[in-house]
């Protein structure tokens, strides 16, 4: 089976996508990306266990992927937004160009052709001169500036990791909810969402399940709550 890519063999979400598309022998299009979305998601589970600090990067792409896929499924319902910047397919194509270019750079680097400088015998000052900006006060300012720059950034990534995991869990929890209960209010689901990403993820997770035919939607009128029901015929 060649379908399993080794977790350690890819550097980031774009690298993973590129390899998945490549493996399916597809060219980089939105349709191709929609096709490999499922596979992409299967790697998120493994990532959560082994490389959780990278989950945030993968989720950014995951959200865009599912958006792309839902757009693919519901073209009439989600008109293509304009002016949203480069699409994921375009971004991946660009990324691929640099990956290709990095092979040239690697070759040049590997040739070990070094352009050497020379060493002019140093001119030394006859007597010591104090540079005008090297007084004790200059040193102190410079040191305070440096220490501020070195302030550790740890607390932030930790929060990001927790958040990333919570988004990932949201997808899993919807699946779980539907496994036990029969019906689920979309409004209730979104009430717990803490930001736009979570709303999008919740919505897209549901679309994903619709596509799998595991659930159905019920809505009594245009602006009423959306009821999510388990498809009993499956």
């Amino acid at each position: 089976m060649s379908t399993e890519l080794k977790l350690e063999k890819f550097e980031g979400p774009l690298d993973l996508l590129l390899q998945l598309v490549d493996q399916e022998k597809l060219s980089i299009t939105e349709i191709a990306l929609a096709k490999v979305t499922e596979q992409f998601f299967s790697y998120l589970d493994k990532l959560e266990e082994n490389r959780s600090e990278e989950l945030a990067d993968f989720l950014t792409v995951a959200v865009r992927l599912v958006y792309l896929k839902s757009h693919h499924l519901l073209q009439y319902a989600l008109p293509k937004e304009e002016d949203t910047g480069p699409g994921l397919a375009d971004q991946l194509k660009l990324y691929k160009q640099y990956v290709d270019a990095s092979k040239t750079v690697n070759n040049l680097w590997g040739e070990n052709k070094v352009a050497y400088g020379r060493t002019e015998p140093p001119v030394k000052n006859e007597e010591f001169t104090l540079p005008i900006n090297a007084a004790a006060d200059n040193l102190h300012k410079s040191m305070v500036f440096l220490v501020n720059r070195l302030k550790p950034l740890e607390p932030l990534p930790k929060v990001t990791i927790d958040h990333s995991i919570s988004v990932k869990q949201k997808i899993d929890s919807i699946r779980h909810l539907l496994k036990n209960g029969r019906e689920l209010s979309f409004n209730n689901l979104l009430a717990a969402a803490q930001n736009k990403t979570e709303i999008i993820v919740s919505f897209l997770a549901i679309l994903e399940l619709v596509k799998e035919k595991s659930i159905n939607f019920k809505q009594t009128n245009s602006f009423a709550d959306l009821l999510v029901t388990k498809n009993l015929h499956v």
Partner: protein
Amino acid sequence: MSNQSKIESVLFVASKPLLTKKIAAALKISDQEVLADLKNLQLKYNNPDSGIAILQNGDEWQMVASAENTDVSENFLKSEVSGELTKPQLETLTVVSYCGPITKPELDQIRGVNCGLILRNLMLRGLVKETEDDGHILPVYEITMDYLRHLGLNSLTELPNYAELHNHPYIAGLAKEE
């Protein structure tokens, strides 16, 4: 002696990367005059079979022995070992080479991953440098002259497809998105 000759002498004795304005200060002439002479020196030295080359990295200039003559040069100085580059380092260096000066968010966006650690690593190895640009809020990253020397290129513009990948329309778009 002409200014061009003086610049030639200064580049020769400096034996390290020099900013245009530093050369201008040494000669007490304008940056524009220095740049015009530097272009002429590039034409004078950077041709096939020359044993000396003039490297340009953005606003920096350095006179070096031709990279083609690495082997014979190493008889007379301590050789600098290039060392291996990991895949993420290589990829990051490539993007910085083609798109620099580039901010970290732009770089992260292109690679789809946070490049903070790799950038720090590349700076420690002296392959990438951080510049606090007056015009920008965020620092920008560029490759160093040392990196250029080890690639054996006279300038990044010699990289294949440089113009196309440097001025890629999506990069402009990405920058706007931020």
